[in-house]
C-alpha cells in the first residue's frame, strides 16, 4: 500500500516535470528524477491516499471508461447550462438532496464528488461520512431521491472497481 | 482565419471579464464576490494563453500556470475565513 503510494507519487511528479520542461534528454531526466525523489520523500506521509488506487488491468479499464463517461457528461453539462442561461425565462428549480454512496475509499469519494460537480445541473456542496449533499439546478419535485441515486450510480459502478 | 478566430475569442473573453467584474462589484454578499473573483481568475488563464499566442512567447503560459495555482490557494484561504476560521 505504502510502496504503491510512493511509486505513484514519484511517477506523477516525474510526469509534471516532463510536461513543464518539454524536453527528453538525459540531463533533464536525471534532474527531474532527483527533484521528484526529494519531493516524494518530503510529502509521502500525507499522500498515502494514492495507495488506494487499484492497478489491476480491470481497474485500469474502469479508469478509462470512467474518464470517457466523464468527458461526455462534461460536454452535456455545459450545453445544458448554456441552454438554461440563454433562455429568457431562466428555467431552474434548485434544491439540495442527500445521497448515500457505496464507495469506502476517501480518494474514490473525492473523485466522485468532483465528477458530480462537473455533470449536468448538479454539484456537491458537502460530504458528511458516506452521504453527499448535491445541489440540483433543476430537480424533479417528485422522486428526487431516485433521480439523485441514478446520477451517483452512473459513476459509482466504475469507481467501485477502480478504488473500492 | 486563425487570426480572425483568435481575435473573436479575445473580444469574447474580454466581454466575459467585464460581466464577471459587474458581479464582483454588485455582490450582494461576500460569497458572491469570491465566486466572481474565482471566475475572473479562471477566465484570465485562457486570456494569458491567447496573449502567449499573439506575442509568440511561451513564458506567458508559465505565468498562467503559477497564477492558477496561487488563485486556487487564495480561494481556499478566503473560503476558510468565510466559514468561521480554524475553530
Amino acid at each position, binding site marked *: 500500500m505504502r510502496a504503491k503510494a510512493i511509486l505513484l507519487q514519484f511517477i506523477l511528479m516525474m510526469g509534471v516535470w516532463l*510536461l*513543464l520542461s*518539454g524536453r527528453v534528454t538525459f540531463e533533464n531526466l536525471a534532474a527531474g528524477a532527483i527533484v521528484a525523489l526529494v519531493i516524494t520523500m518530503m510529502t509521502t506521509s500525507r499522500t498515502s491516499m494514492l495507495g488506494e488506487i487499484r492497478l489491476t488491468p480491470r481497474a485500469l479499464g474502469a479508469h478509462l471508461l470512467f474518464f470517457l463517461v466523464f468527458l461526455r457528461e*462534461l460536454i452535456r*453539462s*455545459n450545453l445544458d*447550462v*448554456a441552454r438554461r*442561461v*440563454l433562455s429568457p425565462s*431562466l428555467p*431552474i428549480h*434548485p*434544491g*439540495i438532496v*442527500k445521497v448515500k454512496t457505496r464507495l469506502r475509499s476517501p480518494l474514490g469519494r473525492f473523485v466522485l*464528488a468532483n465528477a458530480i460537480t*462537473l455533470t449536468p445541473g448538479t*454539484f*456537491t*456542496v*458537502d460530504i458528511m461520512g458516506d452521504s453527499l449533499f448535491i*445541489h440540483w*439546478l433543476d430537480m424533479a419535485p417528485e422522486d428526487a431521491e431516485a433521480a439523485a441515486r441514478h446520477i451517483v450510480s452512473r459513476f459509482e459502478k466504475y469507481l467501485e472497481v477502480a478504488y473500492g | 482565419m*486563425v487570426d480572425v*478566430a*483568435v481575435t*473573436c*475569442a479575445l473580444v*469574447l*473573453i474580454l*466581454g*466575459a*471579464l467585464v*460581466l464577471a467584474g459587474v*458581479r464582483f462589484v454588485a455582490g450582494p454578499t461576500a*460569497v*458572491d464576490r469570491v465566486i*466572481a473573483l*474565482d*471566475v475572473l481568475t*479562471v*477566465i484570465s*488563464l*485562457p486570456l494569458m*494563453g*491567447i496573449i*502567449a*499566442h499573439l506575442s509568440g512567447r*511561451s513564458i506567458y*503560459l*508559465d505565468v498562467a*500556470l503559477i497564477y*492558477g495555482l496561487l488563485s*486556487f490557494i487564495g*480561494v*481556499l484561504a478566503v*473560503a476558510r475565513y*468565510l466559514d*468561521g476560521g480554524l475553530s
Partner: protein
Amino acid sequence: MNVLSIAGALLVGFGAIFLFIGAIGLLRMPDCYTRIQAGTKASTLGTILSLGGIGLLHPSWLGKALLILLFVLLTNPVSSHVLARAAHLAGILPRGDTEVDELAAETEAKHHSINGGGST
C-alpha cells in the same frame, strides 16, 4: 495554414464562447449556489477548450497547455465545492423557491444534538 492550426483556432473560439456564456450565467442567476453552477461549469469547459486550442496552434507548447488544463480540471470543482460549503456554513440560504434543502435539516439536527437537545 494546416489542419492542426485550423482545429486549434476553432477550439479557441468555442472555448471563448463557453467562457462568455458562463459569465452571463454568473450575472443572471438568482442566488449564490446557482451562480456557482453557472460560473464553474461553463468556465471549466471553456478553459479546457481554449488552452487545448492554444496547444494545437503551437505544438511545442502542448505539454505546458496540457498541464494547465489538467490543473484547472482538478481544482475548479474543488474551489466551487469549498465556496458552496462556506456559503452554507455562513448561513446563506438558497433562494426562497428552492424545493428542498436536506443539508440545512442535517446541520440543524447535528447542532441540536451537540447542544444537548432542548437547551433553549
